[in-house]
């Protein structure tokens, strides 16, 4: 053992140290990379959590604007600001900080009305079953259990309160997704007073009796309050400047070609009579949104009780608009004896009850209408929904950025 051996020991030690250092530095870099990815994910999760908490608070209380200030969560901190934007929109900005990094989630929400639905079935309508060949053209909700047989098609997002029961081939097509556990009850009776108030303050309002309306394609409306009376014709902007025509505890009869933007209401604020709508003939838009998506003709019809499609002897009956019935549904008069044909509904149908529209027979013994509904895509936009239409009393997410 001389000097050479010492040199060798030193040499080997140096080699081992160098290679050990290199190995450990690669290991450290690898770990740093993994941690960086983890932190990125964690930061995002914290920011999303803040946004979700804010959404929940806002769903519970529409007036909630407090936000969260420096709330600790899972090793990070959350700040949430809630601000009102024009058009009744609400913006939620959730900012998370974690390990010195910051992440923002921005959510825009808007109040939701029933006009967004192609179909809404209240508690009593949930017994109905959608079957192969049925198509719901847009968003739909069932305030009960959604029942399907075979492969009906739901073009928009479908929600239900109590889940989904599938029978037959069990292959419903949900093109906008399906979500269970969503409760969207119809608003209470008193909430419809706002429509009447709007009619009284800037539109047309009437208590009791009958109101007969015939819309004309030139933007006028012919109206009377007794069956035997003669019609008076006025421009819509004169008859109901704000577009709201409300009748309380009476019967509304309507038909014609609407050129304008109108919300009709037949209410029953109290008592046991009135609050019905009878559609006496075709009720259509002057500019058909199917051929002209830019059509600015908008109709909302709010009724306490049933909508009745009067028996006018026609085999094709067209109704265009969003039809909302608080305690009733869509009735086809003489459905088991009138000539067989089609009831074509363009818009939405929000009802508490579903009724038969035909006698269910085939061939020459068939009577009544096939119900053919199509969603008016314009109603997906809040700006295109009828004014003063019943609200779901909740916000819906318009956009989510994370």
């Amino acid at each position, binding site marked *: 053992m001389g000097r050479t051996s010492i040199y060798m020991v030193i040499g080997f030690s140096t*080699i081992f140290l160098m290679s050990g250092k290199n190995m450990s530095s690669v290991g450290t870099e690898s770990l740093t990379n993994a941690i960086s*990815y983890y932190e990125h994910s964690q930061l995002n999760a914290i920011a999303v959590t803040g946004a979700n908490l804010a959404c929940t608070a806002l769903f519970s209380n529409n007036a909630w604007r407090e936000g969260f200030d420096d709330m600790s969560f899972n090793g990070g901190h959350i700040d949430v600001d809630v601000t009102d934007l024009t058009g009744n929109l609400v913006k939620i900005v959730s900012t998370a900080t974690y390990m010195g990094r910051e992440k923002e989630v921005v959510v825009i929400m808007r109040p939701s009305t029933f006009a967004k639905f192609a179909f809404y079935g209240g508690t009593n309508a949930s017994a109905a079953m959608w079957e192969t060949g049925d198509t719901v053209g847009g968003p739909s909700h069932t305030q009960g259990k959604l029942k399907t047989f075979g492969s009906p098609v739901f073009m928009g997002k479908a929600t239900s309160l109590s889940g989904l029961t599938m029978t037959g081939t069990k292959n419903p097509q*949900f093109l906008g997704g399906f979500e269970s556990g969503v409760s969207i009850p119809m608003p209470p009776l008193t909430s419809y007073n706002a429509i009447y108030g709007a009619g009284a303050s800037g539109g047309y309002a009437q208590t009791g009796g009958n109101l007969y309306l015939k819309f004309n394609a030139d933007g006028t409306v012919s109206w009377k309050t007794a069956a035997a009376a003669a019609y008076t014709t006025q421009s819509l902007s004169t008859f109901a400047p704000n577009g709201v025509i409300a009748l309380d505890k009476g019967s509304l009869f309507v038909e014609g070609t609407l050129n304008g933007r109108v919300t009709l209401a037949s209410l029953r604020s109290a008592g046991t009579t009135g609050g019905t709508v009878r559609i006496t003939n075709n009720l259509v838009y002057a500019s058909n949104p199917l051929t002209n998506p830019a059509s600015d003709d908008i109709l909302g019809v709010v009724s306490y009780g049933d909508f009745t499609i009067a028996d006018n002897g026609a085999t094709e009956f067209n109704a265009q608009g969003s039809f909302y019935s608080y305690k009733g549904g869509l009735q086809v008069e003489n459905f088991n004896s009138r000539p067989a044909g089609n009831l074509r509904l363009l818009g939405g149908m929000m009802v508490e009850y579903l009724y038969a529209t035909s006698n269910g027979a085939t061939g020459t013994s068939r009577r009544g209408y096939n119900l053919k509904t199509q969603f008016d895509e314009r109603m997906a936009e809040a700006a295109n929904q009828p004014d003063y239409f019943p609200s779901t009393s909740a916000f819906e997410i318009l956009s989510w950025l994370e």
Partner: protein
Amino acid sequence: MGSQTILDLIASTMVFGGLLLMALRLNIGNTENLQSYRMDLVVQENLVEVSQLLEDDFKRMGYCLDASKIPNPSMTIRYADSIKIKFLTDLPTGQEGTTGWRGDGALDSITYYVGPTSEATDTPNPNDRKLYRVENNATPYGVNLGVTTFDLQFYDALRNKLPSPVPDPRLIQYMQITIEVQNYAKIGGQMNTAAFDTVYQSAFWRQVRIVAKNLRNR
């Protein structure tokens, strides 16, 4: 210098030679290991880059600063199959933390797909492919980050797997993204070259996710 001295010299040379060979072998082994670990790191870094890019883009699926531009969220995905997806979004015009990150309100599209293995011929790995990310109608430029697997699987609202290509992208509610990244070259002779799959460092990432909140919001 006697014979004993010569024998000592020979013996010491042999001992030294043996030690030198050991040192050289040790050095080679260390170098290979180091190279292997370094390549593992590169593969891992590439995978993190790819997965973060995908995550950030997919989270923006169906988002637009002007939400009225996407009135029907279910129409967001324009095309989907097992190696390609095209969807609508609003691309950021600035870094995160700036207002530009929220987009400009104009509708954009992003297309992701992988090319065939024959495209990436400049690397020894026969399995790697170019990953393409195309904004709107821009000319596709692929990057080779060693992606060997880019597999997309789609599921409907009832969690049924959808065929590829998806006949109606509106059905898509959930998706599974799988990415495998491999090193571009084999590592040294110490590795097991008999089994082909073991000679390229590889990292794997899979995520099953709701497509995007914007597709289910209304």
